């Protein structure tokens, strides 16, 4: 069994060893080994290809861009996803557009790792999930693993990908343990985590575990939920969702993020447009359109949990069948 954070450092270690053009830098990542202890030992093993930077998100993202179009394959860490607005110009206006507007002279092989997500009592600006901010930016890939195995395989795939990839690590997953194998995983592919005939629940990251827990509770009531882990949110594997919906007829999309403008809305729209005849029901469970609150009493109520999810499914199925 391997911890999620070990899977991260293993992937980085293996890719640094495999390709001398891979470099890794960020705030407190080298000597200190990362504030989430996800990168210890890399500096010692790989020397000056792993280094600490000033607290300058724009500079380190810009430097990653400039180095990626001139021969390196940089991996950087933005300590918290909430800091990504500081790096926005370089990611959105430089990295994301270069391949297309250069008339395909050169792509931008860079990876931005960042710790994201709520539930750690860190308040409004250390808990967000930055996916919606980047969802509407062509040229970016957004990867959101839920298991140690996917964390390792997808981070390796991200580093080998020739395009800019945002790789989000949910803070509440770092201590999760799981089996790890050597099979590669392709970016942009969803995975069925649990089969079921009665409805499809689609999520990512912590939401997948919430959905699996809810599915077990629902099974005790005779409701069999299929759970799909999207794993990559851009590009998003709509085909996998549509295929499951064709079997179950009911689709629930669970997103840790605001109701307005999120990836769950995109899934709902794509499915509504492409699979209308398969839909008996389609709805979303998200967080409210509010900043993330600090107090545990508020934050726990804010996040979509397994009990609430199971209750929502029960009442929805009853109301629809009644």
């Amino acid at each position: 069994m391997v911890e999620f954070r070990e899977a991260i450092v293993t992937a980085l270690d293996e890719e640094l060893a495999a390709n001398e053009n891979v470099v890794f830098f960020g705030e407190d990542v080298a000597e200190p080994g990362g504030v989430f202890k996800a990168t210890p030992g890399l500096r010692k093993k790989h020397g000056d290809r792993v280094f600490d930077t000033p607290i300058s998100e724009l500079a380190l993202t810009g430097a990653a861009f400039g180095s990626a179009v001139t021969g390196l394959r940089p991996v950087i860490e933005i300590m918290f996803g909430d800091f990504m607005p500081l790096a926005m110009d370089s990611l959105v206006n430089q990295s994301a557009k270069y391949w297309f507007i250069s008339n395909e002279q050169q792509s931008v092989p860079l990876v931005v790792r960042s710790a994201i997500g709520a539930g750690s009592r860190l308040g409004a600006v250390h808990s967000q999930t930055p996916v919606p901010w980047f969802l509407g930016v062509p040229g970016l890939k957004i990867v959101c693993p839920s298991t140690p195995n996917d964390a390792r395989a997808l981070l390796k795939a991200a580093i080998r990908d020739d395009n800019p990839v945002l790789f989000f690590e949910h803070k509440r997953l770092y201590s999760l343990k799981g089996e790890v194998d050597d099979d590669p995983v392709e970016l942009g592919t969803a995975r069925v985590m649990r089969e079921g005939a009665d409805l499809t629940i689609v999520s990512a990251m912590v939401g997948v575990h919430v959905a699996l827990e809810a599915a077990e509770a629902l099974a005790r009531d005779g409701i069999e939920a299929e759970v799909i882990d999207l794993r990559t949110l851009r590009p998003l594997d709509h085909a996998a969702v549509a295929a499951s919906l064709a079997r179950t007829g009911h689709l629930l999309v669970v997103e840790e993020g605001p109701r307005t403008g999120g990836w769950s809305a995109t899934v709902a729209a794509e499915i509504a447009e492409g699979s209308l005849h398969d839909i008996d029901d389609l709805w979303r469970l998200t967080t409210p359109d509010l900043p993330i609150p600090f107090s545990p009493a508020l934050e726990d109520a804010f996040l979509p949990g397994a009990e609430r999810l199971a209750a929502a499914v029960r009442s929805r199925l009853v109301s629809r069948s009644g």
Partner: protein
Amino acid sequence: MVDSGPADALLDMYRRMRLIRDFEELVQALFLKGEVPGTTHLCIGQEADAIGVASALGDEDRLAGTYRGHGVALALGVDPQALLDEMLGRATGVCGGRAGSMNVIDLSNRLIGCFGIVGGSIAAATGAALSLKRQGRGGVAVAFFGEGTINQGYFAECLNFAQVLSLPVLYLCENNRYGEFTPYEDVTAGEVLDRPRTLGIPAEQVDGMDVVAVRDVAEGAVGRARDGEGPQFVETLTYRFVGHSRADPGAYRKQGELEEWKLRDPLTVARARLVDELGVDAGEVDAVDREIGAQIDEMRSAGLEAPLPDPALLAEASEFKG
């Protein structure tokens, strides 16, 4: 007293400045006829910066420019016809018509890109310097930017980043006295050179209307960066003879200021040195002017006849490589 060097070298620099000047005037003329879509930012008056710096660069070096980037593109050897065709939105443009005036990219000619966002060039060159340092072949990255950029986050963050990592980069600040429509002193505290000096980056000022002076200072700075002395900073004192962009008549200029600067037109300065100091026959310089004039006439015709891009590419192109 600046050493003018051989007459041939200066005549060559004169020829290349004349190409930029005539190119810009052609773009302006075509713009007024409605043939150049969108907007343009011309560098008329600032030709000596582009040619002086490019004359100090070698094959391993890289340069990032701004949205006022036609001059550096031509100085680096970007095909003038392909550059003009890009302005005209043609398929034969250097970026296939995908980029336009503000975002020209030509890696095969050492141009990492021209960046439409103020400060973007600084990030690109800083990152390229990271690559060049790792590659160990002595390459130096150059960032062109205007004095208005020194109030941007990119400037503060990247200069420190480059200095602590001792990157081989030249920060080339073209001080044309106006950030868009606003005089430098109205919106900027202190002097340009104080900022790099505060970080310990060697910084000097040069007459940006004298191509020989710019070349000599650039050669020194690039040489020090190449020799491992870390980032270097040069401020050129220059002036744009035209508005910031298409819609700007330059009403903010002080009375008589433009006329005063035009007396020191970089082409006039270079011509005087050629004829008065180096004994070049004025007829020889006139012949260069005629030769470039003829080239520009041909380019104009070819550009207007060049094919437009096929909209079918929008369905065929991918936002990603691979």
